[in-house]
């Protein structure tokens, strides 16, 4: 469904007149199927967020194409209403002047699909992300991190997209809240039959939700494995990631 075909991206380095360019993505190619959750794991600075922005069509690749159902995502009409995004910094991704209700309706307004049953739609969406109708008139600063992120998810869902890109969407939440949001995302995926592109640095979170993961390093795909085969990763870097992971364990006191 989503096909990334040999994309490259570089940014200008050091100042305005410098000719030097830093290559951020080098010949990245992969595919994300309908209804699949694809995880992209990488450290900070590996270019995974850039990849996310390219998929969303916010930026254009230097070379290569990204096709969504056979059409290039550079065309607004292709991605409008079909690809949504949820970002990490939930506080700054909702317009502070809008109420929760207005924020959720924003993408629908942009699509000029405002209908009479908008009110009930907002209620359903809020309910689906585990909030009730009392949140409609609240402003973003009145929400906690977990609540704000739920509103962002509701907003992403409002256009009933076929694909959502999550860029470190739950990394800044508390672990206990992370689990709630992850459970919610699993349910919603079933309900709407969507694909997820899940960008994160946390392998445990990726293992919880993803069907397939890409281990990303220095702008290149280091390895791509189905989640069941995560323990059999081959590359040195991926193995190192797994051994360096700090897990939580409770001893049985029996």
């Amino acid at each position, binding site marked *: 469904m989503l096909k990334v075909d040999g994309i490259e991206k570089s940014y200008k380095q050091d100042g305005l007149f410098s000719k030097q360019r830093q290559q951020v993505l080098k010949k990245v190619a992969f595919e994300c199927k309908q209804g699949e959750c694809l995880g992209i794991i990488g*450290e*900070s*600075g590996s270019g995974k967020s850039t990849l996310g922005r390219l998929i969303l069509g916010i930026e254009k690749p230097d070379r290569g194409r990204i096709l969504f159902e056979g059409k290039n995502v550079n065309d607004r009409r292709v991605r409008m209403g079909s690809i949504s995004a949820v970002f990490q910094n939930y506080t700054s991704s909702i317009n502070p002047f809008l109420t929760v209700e207005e924020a959720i309706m924003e993408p629908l307004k942009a699509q000029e699909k405002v209908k009479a049953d908008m009110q009930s739609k907002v209620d359903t969406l809020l309910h689906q992300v585990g909030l009730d109708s009392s949140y409609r008139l609240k402003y973003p600063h009145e929400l*906690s*991190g977990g609540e704000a992120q739920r509103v962002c998810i509701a907003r992403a869902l409002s256009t009933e997209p076929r694909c959502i890109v999550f860029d470190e969407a739950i990394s800044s939440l*508390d*672990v*206990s*809240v*992370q*689990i*709630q949001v*992850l459970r919610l995302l699993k349910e919603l995926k079933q309900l709407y039959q969507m694909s997820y592109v899940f960008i994160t*640095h*946390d*392998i*445990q*979170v990726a*293992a*919880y939700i993803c069907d397939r993961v890409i281990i990303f390093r220095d702008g290149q795909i280091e390895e791509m494995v189905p*989640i*069941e085969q*995560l*323990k059999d990763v081959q590359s040195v870097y991926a193995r*190192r*990631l*797994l051994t*360096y*992971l*700090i*897990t*939580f*364990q*409770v*001893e*049985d*006191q029996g």
Partner: protein
Amino acid sequence: MNIVEVKHLKVWDANTDKVIIHNSSFQVKQGSCLAIVGESGSGKSVTCRSIMRLNKPWIRLSGTILFKGEDLNQLSEQEMRRRRGKNLCMILQNGMSAFDPSCVIGVHIRETLQTHFNWNNRESERKIISAMESVMLKNPQEILNQYPHQLSGGMLQRIMIALALVLEPDLIIADEPTTALDTISQYEVVEQLIRLRERMGCSMLFISHDLGVVQKIADEVMVMKDGAIVESGDIRSVFSKPEHTYTQYLVTTRLELSNHFRKLMQEGT
């Protein structure tokens, strides 16, 4: 022997009269590591900043904070300044904002060291370089000539640890030192913190919401919720037999994530 003894600490906001911490009492034993866990907004960081007296001026506090038998709350600002760094050292979450962005790392470090010791430039440089080597930083000389924005989060975090090594404080307060880091740097920073304790035998107050990291580093744990301590005790007994429902909730949610991962890793082996 307790290095820090906090008795009936109450913290409130003078502008809104909102009480942030109600009545908390705890001790850090000499040479041990106490972890404070809890969700964001539970008052973990405020507790630490109260000990360091680094809260915003409108945040008021009452109660006693005894550090080696001396009430920190009664000290003048000047005396407190002398304690910070030398006796109480803080490792912050965000390395990027912990260092002065307008000068290279070396200048900042030299300034800190010369406030506390009578060392000349060459001597302080020699000390910090050997400390940086011991926290596995390569090319320390080069790093000293770089600005904070040129270094990664994990490196800045390790520079802070190196600085703590040179200062040899009695108590280290680490406020979410690993939260902003990715897997590999998180592992390295935790390893360095453990080694730092081994080498200096100092006490530590460790704040985190990641129970995995807490389990690896701390001896005792204290669970906070909405400004109150709900449970505290030895780390193994608290995590394996949590009594308060809130602790149970924290442990089970975290376990759900870890167990799923462990099951995946064990399947078929």
